[in-house]
């Protein structure tokens, strides 16, 4: 019964935001509170799925959540919770500055909640066709959110995003149709033929050639949405032009949701093909993404684009983990959880920096620690987390990833990726230190938001630190049973 409130609360928030006219401040508060509730429900869902249990709901088991769904629901709901609660500061300011009218505020809240709903639907839908519909719907919901400010840059970014995103996702549908075709040709048309639990169960009767072809389409298609190179070209534009709370959710939550879709198909394809086919594809595309991110980060002059390319790096690392077999998968999932915590933090704070310095250029920002001591300090902590330093979660997950890579017998590839990660480390640290230190511009206003506003960010950094020190027992069993879902 947890699935109804999980999907219901963002829907309720969306309906409230849309129906209450004109916009009232309490709607924003209600929307943020509902996102906290959604996060709590996601935690309860994860607790239920710890030991490999699955929750089903609806005719033909329309919704089905198992431990793998729960990991991603946690990540989506957590990212959404931090972004909407902290996002209230962003919205209040935009409103008092007169840049967002009542009408756009209303639309912002409604679409943000629809966006959260579609992500949660994608990870709890049982039917891979419905999963596809939900992922496609995220594109539609977010296109307007990116273009909220209607600057030339925002319009350009939204156009690229919706066009490339729609094409990518259309290719993923070709993959879905091919998978369904294989099922119908080999097993016969039955109810629930597109339900992934059914697909996995009969996978050994499917035709391996078709499944390989289907997986290629799925990987290219959902890989476009996940920002994997070379289909990542829309990502730096969209993530840097979107309002900060939306960038935070698109990077921390939406990219992993697209990877979730790949994982579901990987489970089916592996059970059918049986060799390392999907692993090799994932490793190639993952390593390529890390390398492309490294190359483009060296001379990156804009800090939001810098964070966007860092997302390309981290989805690439997660992809590698997916390719490294049963030891790599939990490391990759852990990596995505930590990345969500770190990346939402820095993207949300980048909105504060942008508002204060009025520029997206690294060279235009200096003395951040002096102008905004609290926000600057948290930003530094988030960046150090992203770089994979201890005691942050990404240190542990990257360590586990690298170890899995060597253990799986890919020392050269893993070594290469390690080198790229090191390169990214150096260039990112260089850019960020330029922003943090030095003397701030003369005319700039000094001071932070009220400290209480930073609580959601501090909490998400606290989670990041906990994930770096120890994998809590329940999380460990959740990850273990998620591995069983994929590798059977």
């Amino acid at each position: 019964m947890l699935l109804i409130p999980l999907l219901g609360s963002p829907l309720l928030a969306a309906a409230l935001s849309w129906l209450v006219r004109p916009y009232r401040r309490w709607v924003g508060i209600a929307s943020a509170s509902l996102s906290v509730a959604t996060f709590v429900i996601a935690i309860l869902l994860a607790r239920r799925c710890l030991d490999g249990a699955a929750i089903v709901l609806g005719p033909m088991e329309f919704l089905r959540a198992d431990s793998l769904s729960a990991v991603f629901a946690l990540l989506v709901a957590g990212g959404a919770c931090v972004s909407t609660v902290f996002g209230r500061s962003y919205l209040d300011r935009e409103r008092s500055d007169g840049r967002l009218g009542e009408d756009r505020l209303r639309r912002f809240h409604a679409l943000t909640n629809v966006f959260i709903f579609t992500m949660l639907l994608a990870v709890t839908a049982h039917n891979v066709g419905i999963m596809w519909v939900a992922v496609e719907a995220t594109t539609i919901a977010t296109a307007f959110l990116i273009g909220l400010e209607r600057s030339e840059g925002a319009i350009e970014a939204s156009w690229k995003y919706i066009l490339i995103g729609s094409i990518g996702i259309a290719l993923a549908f070709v993959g879905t149709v091919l998978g369904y075709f294989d099922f119908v040709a080999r097993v016969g048309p039955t109810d629930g033929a597109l339900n992934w639990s059914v697909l996995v169960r009969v996978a050994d009767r499917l035709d391996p050639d078709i499944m390989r072809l289907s997986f290629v389409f799925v990987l290219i298609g959902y890989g476009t949405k996940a920002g994997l190179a070379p289909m990542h070209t829309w990502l730096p534009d969209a993530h840097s032009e979107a309002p900060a709370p939306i960038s935070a959710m698109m990077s921390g939550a939406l990219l992993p949701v697209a990877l979730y879709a790949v994982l579901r198909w990987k489970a089916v394809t592996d059970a059918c093909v049986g060799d390392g086919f999907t692993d090799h594809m994932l490793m190639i595309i993952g390593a390529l993404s890390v390398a492309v991110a490294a190359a483009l980060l060296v001379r990156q002059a804009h800090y939001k684009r810098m964070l966007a390319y860092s997302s390309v790096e981290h989805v690439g690392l997660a992809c590698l983990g997916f390719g490294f077999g049963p030891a790599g998968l939990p490391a990759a999932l852990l990596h995505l959880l930590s990345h969500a915590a770190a990346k939402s933090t820095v993207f949300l704070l980048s909105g504060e920096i942008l508002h204060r310095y009025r520029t997206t250029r690294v060279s235009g920002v200096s003395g951040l620690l002096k102008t905004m001591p609290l926000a600057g300090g948290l930003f530094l902590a988030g960046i150090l987390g992203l770089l994979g330093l201890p005691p942050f979660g990404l240190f542990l997950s990257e360590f586990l990833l690298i170890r899995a890579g060597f253990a799986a017998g890919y020392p050269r590839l893993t070594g290469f990726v390690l080198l790229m990660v090191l390169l990214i480390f150096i260039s990112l640290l260089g850019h960020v230190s330029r922003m943090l230190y030095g003397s701030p511009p003369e005319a700039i206003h000094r001071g932070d938001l009220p400290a209480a506003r930073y609580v959601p960010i501090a909490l998400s950094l606290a989670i990041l630190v906990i994930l770096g020190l120890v994998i809590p027992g329940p999380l460990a069993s959740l990850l273990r049973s998620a591995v069983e879902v994929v590798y059977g």
Partner: protein
Amino acid sequence: MSVEIFTTVMTLASSLVLLAGIAILWRRSLPAYIHAFARQSFFIVVAVLVLAARERDRELVLVALLMFALKVVFMPAALRRVQRHVGADADVRPYVNTPVSLAIAGILTLVAYAVAQPVVALSHLPTRGGMPLALASVFVGLFIVASRRSALSQIVGFLVMENGIALLAVLATYGVPLIVELGVFLDVLLGFLVMQVFVYRIRDAFETTDVDRLRSLRH
């Protein structure tokens, strides 16, 4: 209807679908693109109706009707309206000239045949001959998006691609389950409407729909 005639009709319809897609590559005006898209959609509707009659499948009739309303009537009309509003921004200078475009379309069709070969080999359906043609339409649509400069032409390219996929689903499996089909229709419609809104915004911000002018973010 005998199997031979049915097979011929379906393959013929698939060929016409691909041909309508390729026609866009040699036409030079947006109204012609829109017309070719509407015609392509119409051929798919015919194919779905023939299949529905043969299989006595009510769901497929519903799919055909929806497709007719959406892709033959509504979308072409909406595209024409947008085109009138944003002005005669005809796509006279695509990135790739006509002879090269047609040669590429030919290559894409060959690639589609190569890629679809295991699919055709596995299928026992009389419609299997059309599957490479449907896949070729997908690739041609992709090429249209990549090679045209006007935002509206890119939308048409996307819709051609979407048509190819719809046809592929019909030929390969006699249609995906209805619930998925409805979700796909909803997504395509909403995606189309959002794209349409952005065409207006691009025109308002840049005073053209030539996406080649959208280069402020390349750094």
